[in-house]
């Protein structure tokens, strides 16, 4: 089934400064939506607002055309990967996979170097490995949509390639909104790219648009 996530009317200001102004964003099952923007443009704020973690500002979030006011407890609709580590460090990988009702053998097949230590606690892994585990469980979680905020941070290039393959496989089941400063990876992956610039969200048509809007040089 094809699901749609639409976000509009997102407005956010801090002490008189307009961070986000009348934002519209759309994501569908089978699509990866890339969200780019310079530092401090409000990408993470936008993700927090969509996921319902931040209730500042105003917004309208619709799933399949129906407005959802409260997303707490609606992991069937949306899950969110924050920039920071969020899995309690005293849990083992096995335990995390059990909580998310995921098959650990698939993880072991994809990332044998991390998955083979499934009885180890999260705190015993390196920052990159920890990020990889978090990213994997969010990508594979049984949800219609996933928001990934800087998913590739701390992850090695080889593993990023495998994550990209995993995202392409998993997008058959869900829609992704991804924000990261590694824009070449985002450009590779995404079906549509939005650029956040001066509080406005621009749907870019080509790489040239990113240059025109002053985000990157190619």
């Amino acid at each position, binding site marked *: 089934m094809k699901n749609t996530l639409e976000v509009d009317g997102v407005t956010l200001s801090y002490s008189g400064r307009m961070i986000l102004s009348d934002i519209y964003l759309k994501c569908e099952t089978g699509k990866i939506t890339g969200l780019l923007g310079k530092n401090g443009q409000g990408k993470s704020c936008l993700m927090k607002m969509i996921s319902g*973690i931040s209730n500042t500002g105003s917004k309208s979030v619709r799933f399949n055309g129906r407005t959802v006011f409260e997303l707490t407890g*609606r992991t069937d609709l949306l899950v969110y990967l924050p920039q920071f580590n*969020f899995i309690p460090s005293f849990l083992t990988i096995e335990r995390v996979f059990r*909580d*998310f009702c995921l098959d650990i053998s698939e993880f072991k097949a994809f990332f044998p170097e991390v998955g083979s230590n499934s009885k180890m606690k999260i705190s015993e892994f390196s920052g990159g490995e920890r990020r990889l585990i978090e990213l994997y469980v969010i990508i594979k*979680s049984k949800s219609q949509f996933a928001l990934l905020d800087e998913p590739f941070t701390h992850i090695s290039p080889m593993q990023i390639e495998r994550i990209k393959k995993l995202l392409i496989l998993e997008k058959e089941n869900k829609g992704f909104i991804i924000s990261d400063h590694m824009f070449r990876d985002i450009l590779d992956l995404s079906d549509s790219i939005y650029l956040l610039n001066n509080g406005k969200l621009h749907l870019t048509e080509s790489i040239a648009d990113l240059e025109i809007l002053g985000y990157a040089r190619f």
Partner: protein
Amino acid sequence: MVICHFLSLFEVGYINFVVLFCLKMSLASLTRFLRLILTFYSTYSFSSILLSIISAGIFWKSGMSFFVVIFWFKLLSMGFIITYIDQYRKNEYLYYRNLGLSKSALWIFSLVFDFILFVSLLIGVYQLR
């Protein structure tokens, strides 16, 4: 005695509430829910149970006359624990949120569970005295 009776009634009420809540869930999701609450509780259980034992010790020595002091001691120390967790482990709330549990649900269920332990300990001490 009246206080013990009231507290027992409170416990029964809470247990009824939990039973009704649990009846609405499937067994698998109920097990998962309880496991997550206990996992969250484990982040502060050591200090909290220690405080309950200290309170019970004071209650054993001083009796009913100190009950109000002990009650407020427990309540205030829980306030400190909540503030500490909220400050230093706030990132972990997202783990539970991504599993369907809100911050308020985590605190309500784990604190009430902790309070029941505390009250049970005091009732036990009262009957032993």
